[in-house]
């Protein structure tokens, strides 16, 4: 019975969508939804399908050639024109781009451009859309006042359960983490919990606006975006007026900031509070209360008594001092990378290597760094700009516009391969964002790119024909907006001995996959290729696919070998900014 109800439901839903379902039918459809949980499941499944297919329709990407055979799969040939009425625009509401079929000869290229425009504009038009719709909705809301209160007052429970981040790690210098505590990276959001430094310095910015410089060894317990407890160690807090009321708890003292800069140290039962600027209120758990002003210091001795103490500002590293240390860390990391890079240039396994290091900004040639020198491997920069790379003294290349690219020509035949690069992704606007794509994608040629889902994609072309074109290996999604603007190390190995492809992020293996025998290619080659984009294939019917990376690259290397995991890890460590 259940399955016949589902069949009935499907027909009813279909008619309802078509606008041809009568009142009795609608009642029946609702009834089915109310009483049959399988129908509800089927409803969700069908509607989701409808949503997805319409999303692709809206995006105007229906004409893109995709997947499997990539450019050879002509999925949506241009309509004959005769069969369908002309000028059937997709509902063009809310700043969407209309796709008109016109006389039926809209080229795939132009639809692609529409699609990419949509993506590019999506973020920027959003505000305009929001503001543009404001007045309309505003008046609608005023006429229905109850809506407004319903929407504004009752906050759903889900919102309460989301206390994930209360502060950000903004700088780290020579940090080692306490083994019992979680390590963090610059840019990470800190949840409620312990930050445990074994050594080094961490700059933590609370969402309330207070900045804390924590010096190891120390343990700081983050309790909320305005309260932290120093269990041991030393910190200096800078609290702008907007963050007044920020509190540091130390032993049984509570330091409430009144807009200032102060230091707190906890050591073997003693707590020091020093005020460098402004004033703080000090509360003792025994009820004692003090106002401590600039230039004053108070110690709570082991026996619990508060005493005046001498100010020692130099004991507490400030923002300026941290800046010096960051700079010297950057310098030493750059030096470390440079030494490593010098060795890499002579590695006989390197096919081509662009360190992107010594070039001048006006040069449009991307010099190959391989030693002995081979000028034939030099790349040509088209459109892309030179920008600051991982360190201020080093350059990288920024890909922004749809035409931006670096052209290379790499002759020869190879077996195993390893691709590795440092990349900073601003956003993933395209279905495919290119890291390295060969022009024609013929037998043995690799494609290395990132999907808009944040997955790393690697494939080597086998041959023509759908389903036989290649075997793609996708990593789990590794990128989301929280990584925007961060330098990441990506690497992929293609091992012809074990027939496996392995993806790495920041020196860690993300996934490994064996290639099925029938899709495996033993001999690889590159030829003409593009970094950061895809050059239109030379076949006449092929279209210009926009696959430019939106971001920057700093260092790119290709090996004629599948690097071992520890070698990939070493590339990451030696090049970490």
């Amino acid at each position, binding site marked *: 019975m259940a399955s016949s109800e589902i069949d009935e439901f499907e027909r009813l839903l279909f008619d309802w969508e078509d606008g041809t379902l009568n009142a009795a039918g609608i009642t029946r459809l609702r009834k089915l939804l109310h009483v049959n949980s399988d129908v509800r499941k089927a409803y969700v499944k069908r509607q989701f*399908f409808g949503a997805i297919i319409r999303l692709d329709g809206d995006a105007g990407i229906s004409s893109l050639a995709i997947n499997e055979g990539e450019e050879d799969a002509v999925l949506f040939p241009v309509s004959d024109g005769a069969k369908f009425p002309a000028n059937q625009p997709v509902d063009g509401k809310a700043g969407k781009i209309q796709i008109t079929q016109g006389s039926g000869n809209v080229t795939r290229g132009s639809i692609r451009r529409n699609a990419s425009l949509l993506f590019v504009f999506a973020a920027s038009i959003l505000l305009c859309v929001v503001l543009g719709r404001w007045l309309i909705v505003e008046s609608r809301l005023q006429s229905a006042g109850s809506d407004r209160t319903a929407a504004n007052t009752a906050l759903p429970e889900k919102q309460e359960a989301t206390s994930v981040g209360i502060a950000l790690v903004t700088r780290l210098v020579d940090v080692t983490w306490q083994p019992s505590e979680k390590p963090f990276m610059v840019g990470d959001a800190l949840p409620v919990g312990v930050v445990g430094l074994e050594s080094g310095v961490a700059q933590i910015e609370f969402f309330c606006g207070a900045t804390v410089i924590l010096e190891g060894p120390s343990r700081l317990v983050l309790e909320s975006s305005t309260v932290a407890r120093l269990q041991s160690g030393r910190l200096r807090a800078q609290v702008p007026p907007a963050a007044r009321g920020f509190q540091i708890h130390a032993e049984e003292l509570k330091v409430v900031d009144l807009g200032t800069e102060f230091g707190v140290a906890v050591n073997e039962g003693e707590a020091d509070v020093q005020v460098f600027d402004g004033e703080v209120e000090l509360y003792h758990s025994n009820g004692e209360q003090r106002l401590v002003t600039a230039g004053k210091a108070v110690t709570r001795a082991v026996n619990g008594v508060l005493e005046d103490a001498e100010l020692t500002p130099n004991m507490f590293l400030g923002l300026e001092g941290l800046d010096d240390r960051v700079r010297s860390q950057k310098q030493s990391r750059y030096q470390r990378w440079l030494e490593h890079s010098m060795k890499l240039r002579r590695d006989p396994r390197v096919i081509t290597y662009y360190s992107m290091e010594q070039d001048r900004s006006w040069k449009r040639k991307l010099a190959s760094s391989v030693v002995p020198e081979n000028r034939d491997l030099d790349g040509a920069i088209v459109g892309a700009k030179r920008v600051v790379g991982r360190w201020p003294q080093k350059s990288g290349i920024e890909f922004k516009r749809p035409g931006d690219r670096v052209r290379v020509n790499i002759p020869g035949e190879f077996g195993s391969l390893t691709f590795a690069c440092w990349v900073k992704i601003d956003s993933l606007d395209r279905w495919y964002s290119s890291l390295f794509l060969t022009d024609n994608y013929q037998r043995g040629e690799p494609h290395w790119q990132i999907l808009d889902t944040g997955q790393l994609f690697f494939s080597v072309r086998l041959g023509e024909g759908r389903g036989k074109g290649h075997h793609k290996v996708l990593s789990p999604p590794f990128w989301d907006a929280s990584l925007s603007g961060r330098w990441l190390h990506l690497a992929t190995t293609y091992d012809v001995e074990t027939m496996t492809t392995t993806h790495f992020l920041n020196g860690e293996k993300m996934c490994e996959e064996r290639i099925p025998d029938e899709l495996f290619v033993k001999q690889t080659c590159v030829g003409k290729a593009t970094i950061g984009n895809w050059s239109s294939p030379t076949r006449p019917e092929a279209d210009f696919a926009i696959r430019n990376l939106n971001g920057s690259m700093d260092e790119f290397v290709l090996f004629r070998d599948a690097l071992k995991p520890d070698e990939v890890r070493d590339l990451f460590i030696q090049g970490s900014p």
Partner: protein
Amino acid sequence: MSETEQTEVFVQQLAECQGRMFGYIYSMLGEHSRAMDVVQETNLALWRKKDEFREGAPFMPWALAIARFQVLAHVRDQGRDKCLLDSELVAALSEEIEQQVDQLESMRIALRQCMSDLPREKIEMIKSRYYRSMTIAEIASAMGRQADAVKVALLRLRRALADCMHRKMLED
């Protein structure tokens, strides 16, 4: 973080969740232009409430919770004539749809793969129905076929594509 930067982060998150939000709202309403209206109303509500959003907290659950309110308000205003779901059904389906939303992007990829295996005529039918929102009658007359035949074909096609999509999802 400065106010401008916070706004940027917020707008970025808002932009990124548009697809999933549409998926959620469309699933509730089942009608394209009304779903777009409610998406925009939700955007507006989110924008107004942006100060309430705690940065670093997951954006999506918050956005969906507010989207649900907007859907409920829409269902209440438009009433039974226009909306298939009543508020009870919205509540009953909400959780399941929220779970599906997380898979939206991988579903899109799976569906593209499934579409690529279709013959040309069938793709045209799908495009007419879903991209151009043509009615069955319009499609039938454009193709010179009986409406019933088109309906049966589309029903089958939709089921096959949806099944293919879910199968591909399981393969991954």
